[in-house]
């Protein structure tokens, strides 16, 4: 029995939520007295891989020989490593790639799978995992019956736990001639900070009155080093791109700070942000339901308040 942690990377860097998956796997292995090993597939420098030593992982298997990865290739390689390592729990980070590879792996190795897991198992034999459910409006505690399990950790839920150890890397090679899904191109959503794993988010809605007014939001986001987001109505009418839509039918996020400007706080929107650590609401309407779900609030006109807030943040940073 052992814990195997799939470590995702992008553009030569280990993803932040991958370090979170490592923290989870290391903690789980320690709690159950079994070894933990990481697995990282593709083109990435050893120097970068060693960063997992800062979150307590001592052993990593690097699989090279593959340029372009899709989740079919990843899950095939992982199923071999699961066998070789006698892994009983396989941990993935909460990206859509993690859910894809994790799902395929679960079928290959006949394991159970739970996604959006927020904490370590509450029991073992059988394993019980708590996951986010109802798009942020609840949690479900799931008991798995199979011997092996795939755990996909919800982004920014367990956190990255620092623990310095020496990390050793074993390199193996793999190849794949599966080209059933051919890659053509990547398109970036934004040159700014990517929303799904941003720690700070500035979001705005209909209160901004028109897409031409978003400059003040973007300036505030820049001053904070935050990603930008929006409510469903402004995404539906095309003021903002779809990938910014946060809510029950958009994306769910759990940043450290969610700053909502000119958003009333409908139940569907709240669902998408309910696990944010700190929520700040700025709205001209003191009756806006969002204030009930906020930690801090300002009742005021966004066009007046936001530029002054941006200035205050810039001077606080100096």
């Amino acid at each position: 029995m052992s814990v195997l942690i799939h470590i995702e990377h992008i553009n030569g860097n280990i993803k932040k939520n991958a370090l979170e998956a490592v923290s989870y796997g290391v903690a789980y292995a320690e709690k159950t007295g079994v070894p933990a090993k990481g697995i990282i597939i593709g083109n990435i420098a050893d120097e970068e891989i060693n960063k997992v030593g800062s979150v307590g992982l001592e052993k990593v298997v690097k699989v090279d020989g593959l340029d372009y990865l899709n989740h079919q290739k990843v899950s095939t390689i992982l199923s071999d490593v699961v066998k070789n390592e006698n892994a009983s729990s396989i941990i993935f980070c909460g990206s859509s790639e993690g859910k894809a590879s994790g799902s395929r792996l679960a079928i290959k190795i006949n394991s159970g799978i739970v996604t959006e897991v927020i904490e370590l198992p509450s029991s073992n034999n059988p394993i019980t995992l708590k996951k986010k459910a109802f798009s942020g409006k609840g949690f479900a505690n799931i008991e798995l019956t199979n011997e092996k399990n795939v755990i996909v950790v919800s982004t920014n839920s367990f956190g990255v736990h620092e623990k310095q150890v020496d990390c050793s890397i074993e390199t193996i090679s793999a190849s794949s001639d599966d080209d059933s899904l051919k890659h053509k191109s990547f398109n970036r959503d934004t040159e700014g900070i990517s929303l799904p794993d941003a720690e700070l988010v500035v979001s705005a809605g209909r209160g901004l009155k028109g897409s031409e007014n978003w400059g003040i939001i973007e300036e505030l986001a820049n001053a904070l080093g935050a990603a930008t987001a929006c409510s469903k109505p402004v995404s539906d009418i095309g003021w903002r791109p779809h990938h910014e839509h946060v809510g029950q039918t958009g994306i769910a996020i759990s940043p450290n700070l969610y700053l909502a400007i000119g958003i009333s706080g409908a139940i569907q929107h709240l669902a998408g942000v309910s696990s944010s650590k700190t929520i700040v609401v700025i709205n001209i309407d003191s009756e806006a339901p969002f204030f009930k779900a906020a930690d801090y609030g300002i009742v005021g006109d966004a066009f007046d308040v936001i530029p002054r807030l941006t200035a205050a943040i810039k001077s606080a940073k100096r």
Partner: protein
Amino acid sequence: MKILVCISSVPDTTTKITFTNNNTEFNSNGVQFVINPNDEFGLTKALHIKERNAGSTVTVIHVGPASNDPIIRKSLAIGADDAVRIDTMANDPIQVANEIAHYIKDNPFDLIITGKESIDYNGAVVPHALGELLGIPSVSPCIGLEISGNEATITGVIDGGSEDLSAILPVIVGGQKGLVEESELRIPNMRGIMQARSKPLKVIASCGFSDCQKIVSYDTPTPKSACKLIDANNVEELVALLQNEAKVI
């Protein structure tokens, strides 16, 4: 071309979620159940593709009990040609994927469209598990799909952006908003509703796949304590609180 659209039944988005029986059951009292919103984008996309490829059909499949027939009839009213219901409770994503795969093995399709995830359990597992069981590619979340002959050009969502891919049919995609626009979503009209009554809704037995998991209990999120209001003229105070009290900047 034969297109299969997989739909699930979920509580409507305005539902206040509560649990009963000592938090061991979802409280469905007074809850309106609807077609999973992500599945609706897939259903409209399937109809667009059908209209561009003469002789194509759109079949809807649902894993669930007879009490879910109304949402299946709604998908027929929206424009699907026929429907299949696998008569068993949908208890876990591996079980659901196996039931659907079992049906597809005897009834092949060129294109299978699911939702990227259901808004009740947020699994995001079914499209990929189904792809693995059938040995075909799966792209989910999917925000773009064009079919030309037997080739699919697919746009999938990845961290920080999207990826353009191509594959030879059959493929599976998991739809979300963006696969079609919200404004393009097909809704049932009177004619559709009338026609839906006579479109085939075949009920088939479960393949007997055992569940891999069970929900032992639920929890509700901890509500926030009272909001601290700051005067609009004193934004500096908010900045100080965020730095020193909340420690988020």
